[in-house]
């Protein structure tokens, strides 16, 4: 199992606080309860009640860690206020980004945290069915989570009568697999319904019409993992952590030339600190930082003071996304990198909407043309126009954000792209844009 990176001592450990206590056996419920597991659920049921719990979460300012950053309290309130006989809470632990294992590592290191968060969310929204969706390829993790859910049910934390409150919360572990798009909430709901995984138009949001048409709260596992801490320590304590408009901590998968790993960082930490945490810049200088996984943006060194949080990252041309921060040094070529990212996004497009299915493919082809030395003089303009159109007409965040690789590349590394197009040379020496010269020869 990937270990967590040691972070500075003054950084709070909201999500990974109990990992040390459970190091010997994460499946040990007694050790977990001694360390405070299900204490938050007890407080929520005994002291706060459903509306009080929602108010606490809303006051803490917790925002969705799945990437979009929707306020969790509002989401719960929207689902709870819908009149319905059946509501659902779904924890999205799919972790679609191939380079990121934060969700799986968190679930494996402390399965009780997310189960407790699910139980609190279900209690607060009045849902009796809670579903934890995880990757099916990690069979050991699925077994461990199923065992944990069973043990928690036997101990009375889940099941027909949660902590003698009369409330029923059934947690089901659902292994899902087979597509990148399962990270998107409506796609995940489609998979749980047994349908083809294509996103739905929003609104209606899943909080109105979600799983099987019932109000559904879909939260990332990291969002739910923060919930017990907030209920236990109070919303003011949580709101004090990290950035002002989006408090809290988030798990980040760092990757650099000198190393990497998973770290829990407060939101609002400057990117520079994350780069240092990833092992620094190594022998060479930092050329770009890829923030947000395959659909992320490429930020130059002079943007390293950007705080790692929703708004400023989007303004800078990247996004939190999967929580991936990859440091690229001088050996990387921006065109080559953006081409690869766009290609992956295009390959993983579900095919529902045309801008995504065809637009991303064309974006990749333009990038490929530039990288292999067959660019047209208009390619730079075409790239910008097409990326703008795809982002403007997108249905889900996948296609809107998949253009970021090229748009941020055009924004910050225009001279390097121009070198490819106009001078047919690759400054990094990665691409071989020599076909123009060869074309002139014959």
């Amino acid at each position, binding site marked *: 199992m990937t270990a967590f990176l040691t972070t500075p001592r003054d950084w709070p450990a909201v999500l990974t606080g109990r990992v040390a206590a459970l190091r010997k056996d994460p499946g040990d419920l007694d050790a977990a309860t001694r360390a405070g597991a299900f204490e938050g659920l007890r407080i929520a049921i005994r002291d706060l009640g459903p509306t009080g719990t929602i108010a606490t979460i809303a006051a803490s300012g917790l925002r969705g860690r799945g990437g979009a950053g929707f306020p969790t309290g509002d989401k719960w309130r929207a689902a709870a206020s819908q009149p319905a006989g059946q509501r659902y809470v779904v924890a999205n632990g799919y972790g679609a980004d*191939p*380079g990121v294992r934060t969700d799986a590592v968190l679930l494996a290191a402390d399965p009780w945290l997310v189960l407790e968060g699910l139980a609190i969310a279900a209690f607060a929204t009045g849902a009796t069915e809670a579903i934890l969706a995880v990757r*099916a*390829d990690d069979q050991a993790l699925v077994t461990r989570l199923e065992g944990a859910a069973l043990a928690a049910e036997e101990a009375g934390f889940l099941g027909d009568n949660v902590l003698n409150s009369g409330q029923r919360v059934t947690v089901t572990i659902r292994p*899902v*697999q*087979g*597509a990148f798009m399962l990270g998107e909430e409506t796609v995940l709901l489609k*998979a*749980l*319904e*047994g*349908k*083809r*995984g*294509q996103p739905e138009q929003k609104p209606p949001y899943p909080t109105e019409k979600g799983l*099987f048409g019932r109000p559904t709260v879909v939260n990332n596992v990291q969002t739910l993992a923060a919930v017990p801490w907030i209920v236990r320590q109070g919303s003011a304590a949580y709101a004090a952590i990290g950035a002002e408009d989006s408090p809290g901590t988030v798990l980040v998968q760092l990757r650099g*030339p000198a*190393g990497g790993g998973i770290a829990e960082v407060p939101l609002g930490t400057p990117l520079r600190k994350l780069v240092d945490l990833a092992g620094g810049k190594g022998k060479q200088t930092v050329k770009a930082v890829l923030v947000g996984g*395959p659909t992320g943006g490429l930020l130059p060194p002079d943007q390293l003071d950007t705080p790692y949080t929703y708004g400023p990252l989007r303004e800078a041309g990247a996004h939190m996304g999967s929580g991936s921060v*990859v440091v*690229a*040094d001088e*050996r*990387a*070529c921006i065109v*080559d*990198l953006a081409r*690869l990212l766009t290609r*992956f996004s295009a*390959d993983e497009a*579900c095919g529902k909407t045309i801008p995504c299915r065809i637009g991303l493919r064309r974006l990749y082809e333009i990038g490929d043309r530039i990288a292999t030395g067959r660019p047209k003089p208009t390619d730079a303009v075409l790239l910008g126009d097409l990326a703008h159109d795809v982002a403007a007409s997108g249905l889900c965040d996948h296609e809107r954000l998949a253009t970021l690789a090229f748009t941020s590349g055009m924004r910050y590394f225009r001279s390097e792209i121009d070198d490819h197009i106009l001078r047919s040379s690759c400054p990094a020496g*990665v691409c071989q844009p020599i076909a123009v010269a060869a074309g002139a020869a014959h």
Partner: protein
Amino acid sequence: MSIVPGMGMVRGMGFTLKRFFAPKATVRWPEQPADVAPKFRGRLQLLYDEYGTLKCETCFQCAQACPIECIDMGGIDTKGRFHVHWGPPETYGERREESALRRSGRTVPDAAFARFDPIDTTALDEILDRHDYDPRALLTILEETQAEYGYLPVGALKHISRITGTWYAMIYGTATYYRHLRLEPPVIEAESAGEAHLAIESAYRSALDASLGYGAEASAR
């Protein structure tokens, strides 16, 4: 080859000039019959309509009239009840046409239809029973069906559609979307179901490493 250059041209033009003044040769067909062999009855040809299917109605009139009995054919009678046949077994390519085969009551070897191999549905019925014939558990049903049969036979999808009442198109849509579901037997026996998606993910990781120039250090980790 003539010795004098241009002689061929002169000869050709001479022939033209001779024909120019000769009387016209016009055969007034059909009043005046053309000079053909006494056994010739015209060229045998099956005609196609504008949709590309054979126009032949299998009425046997041509086969009955054929003086040298070179026509043989088969098909279904006009009420669609009996298989009728005339002549030795069909040997010509155009009689193996899809429409000709269907008319002659034979199986049509079509790739899309050939997959409808009958399957033993005992195991599938057990799976469906376990899930209460509930189409909402379709993904799980498909996964278990694949675990049982090794892949998703079209017969199994048809069976699920018929038993649960779900549209075949929806089942097919689900089955073709997820990478771990496959509609053909695996090429390599031991290949596990989730392999396809994991291969793509690891390909992305190594491509990203290559693009970043991590190469050697990354593979060591």
